[in-house]
């Protein structure tokens, strides 16, 4: 198993955002996490890469504990486990003070993944993959939202993650340009990248994801293969959501 999550709990003050969440992610899984705003899906994703600290439960990444029964591993282990994951944010979060090239190269060299020359090769390869080779020396502010998000995906891929986490990657984009980001993600899925995608794109969830997790008020209301959840939803809440 790539990721095992058991009995995860998290509250912000008196607001219990995650209640007893358990699921597993196998290598090559593309899991769409669906649910209404405030259902806890973003918090769940952020917990996996330690942007949020959970109150209880366990997260195991490739057999090693990130947190076990609410007690976190040591700093070094946390760093090592979260380094296996790449994350793409809704607001891209590119570094505005650096060119596209520098955005990709800097984390690679700063984290000691290899030489500058190696970083440069990888940078060109990945920008080619997301179709932005010509934007190498542009600053993020001169790119469209869709282009920025594709750069953000390339930047995360620079560090060669085993798992990619996407937190509403197309929610900030105009409907006309969500397609270019989704197709980049689709390419990634067909390269057998393990992906967890918090999204409102039901089309993507249905056609690209192999599993769907539907969250409601901090619990997994329904989970299963994309096929099963979309064609034979069991829970009335899921049914209502999918009809929207």
């Amino acid at each position, binding site marked *: 198993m790539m990721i095992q999550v058991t009995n995860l709990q998290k509250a912000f003050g008196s607001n219990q955002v995650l209640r007893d969440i358990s699921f597993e992610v196998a290598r090559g899984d593309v899991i769409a996490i669906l649910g209404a705003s405030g259902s806890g899906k973003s918090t769940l994703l952020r917990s996996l*890469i*330690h*942007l949020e600290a959970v109150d209880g439960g366990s997260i195991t990444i490739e057999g090693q504990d990130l947190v076990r029964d609410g007690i976190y591993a040591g700093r070094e282990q946390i*760093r090592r486990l*979260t*380094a296996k*994951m*790449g*994350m793409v*944010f809704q*607001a891209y*979060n*590119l*570094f*505005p*003070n*650096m060119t596209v090239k520098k955005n990709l190269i*800097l*984390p690679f060299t*700063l*984290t000691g993944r290899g030489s500058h020359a190696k970083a440069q090769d990888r940078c060109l390869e990945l920008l080619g993959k997301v179709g932005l080779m010509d934007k190498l020396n*542009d*600053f*993020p*502010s*001169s790119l469209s939202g869709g282009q920025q998000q594709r750069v953000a995906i390339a*930047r*995360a891929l620079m*560090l060669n993650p085993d798992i990619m986490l996407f937190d509403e990657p197309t929610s900030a984009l105009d409907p006309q340009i969500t397609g270019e980001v989704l197709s980049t993600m689709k390419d990634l899925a067909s390269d057998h990248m393990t992906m967890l995608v918090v999204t409102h794109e039901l089309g993507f969830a249905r056609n690209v994801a192999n599993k769907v997790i539907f969250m409601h008020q901090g619990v997994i209301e329904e989970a299963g293969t994309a096929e099963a959840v979309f064609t034979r939803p069991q829970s009335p809440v899921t049914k209502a959501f999918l009809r929207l």
Partner: protein
Amino acid sequence: MDYIISMLPMLLKGTVTSLKLFAFALVLSIPLGLPVALQLRSRFRPLRWIANIYVYIFRSTPLMLQLVIIYFGLPRIPGIGPYLLLDRFHAAILAFVLNYIAYFAEIYRSGLLGVNRSQFEACQVLGLSHWQTQTRVIFPQMFRICLPSVANEVITLLKDTSLLYAVSVAELIHNAEAIVNRDANMTALMVALVIYMILNFFLTVILKHLESRFSWGKNL
């Protein structure tokens, strides 16, 4: 015209003194403002209090008074006083640096508030250390946000050098005044005014250039 040319050597000599103070004060206070700004945001309360009190004192009292106290006042402190006797120029540098650190610290603090919090998250998921995050990502963005306010202070600093007058250092205004008193003619002060304008013209051009140099693709 000949009259103006005749006074120039003395005025330019004063200008050099003014510029010297300007340069020392700038080179020291711009970087030293940063650690104070970080202290203002420290999680450790006593550090925050000290920084706040420091900034409060130096921002709420006139620079001229600070200058006079450092030069005339410090040496009168019983016991350690005699060791605090500075010459006029060094006393002025100290006063200016302490004063401008307070202003730059506040400007930097506002700049740090202006850097999007999500930048920290991006750095974290990319595995950057705290130090790398600050120096490579946060400070450059803070600096860019602050640049117009810093530029404002830099121009004010050049004019504030005229406060050296209060401790009788022979800077530009001091020398101009001397000529005015000697010749009973206001021209020297007018020439001094033109010199300030010329210097600030060049400063403004340099600062504007810096702003566009760090525009990162945005049209400003």
